[in-house]
């Protein structure tokens, strides 16, 4: 499939380690945030979301942290696996009003 994001920042982690992917969002009025995973040749796949009235939300092996003060979002992946290798995008919107706006992606490479 097509290789997306040839010029994206890359994070390389050892299998089994934890990964932290960061995102600085742009709109202080945004109140809904999502992390997407994009594998080569595929569309963005929903991972986890968080609303602005929360600062942390946990899923299965993933945690999203939101710091509204500095407009920063992070995705933590526990015990990273080879199948986690992909490009990860954060996205934001002002709930219900505007379409999702995507940030720049980060390529995660898991070293077995």
């Amino acid at each position, binding site marked *: 499939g097509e290789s*997306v*994001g*040839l010029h994206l920042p890359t994070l390389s982690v050892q299998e089994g380690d934890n990964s932290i992917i960061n995102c600085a969002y742009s709109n202080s009025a945004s109140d809904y945030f999502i992390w997407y995973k994009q594998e080569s040749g595929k*569309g963005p796949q929903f991972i986890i979301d968080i609303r602005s009235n929360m600062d942390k939300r946990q899923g299965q092996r993933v945690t999203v942290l939101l710091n509204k003060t500095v407009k920063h979002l992070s995705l933590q992946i526990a015990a990273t696996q080879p199948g986690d290798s992909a490009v990860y*995008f954060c996205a934001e919107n002002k*709930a*219900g009003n505007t379409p999702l706006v995507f*940030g720049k992606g980060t390529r995660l490479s898991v070293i077995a």
Partner: protein
Amino acid sequence: EPEVTQTPSHQVTQMGQEVILRCVPISNHLYFYWYRQILGQKVEFLVSFYNNEISEKSEIFDDQFSVERPDGSNFTLKIRSTKLEDSAMYFCASSERQGYGYTFGSGTRLTVV
């Protein structure tokens, strides 16, 4: 699990030709979107569509572009007189509620030569 289906997966067209990219959104979804992703860049919003009309569009979505829901299942993006810089992955998405729960298709890779 319900999917958004896009066809074709890859389209090659000559500069100046018209192309139609097709999408079948999830059946109970009411909001439809087109995004594009130029190689190596982020996913960019093009247009959103609700109740048979455009609800919002970006500055990328100029007169060269149009969208249509010709029947109860398909949602199409037409690009008239394609340019080299239109080469990108085009993603369709749909959602049940505006702004939430987008499901993306696998995309159509458009190559303009």
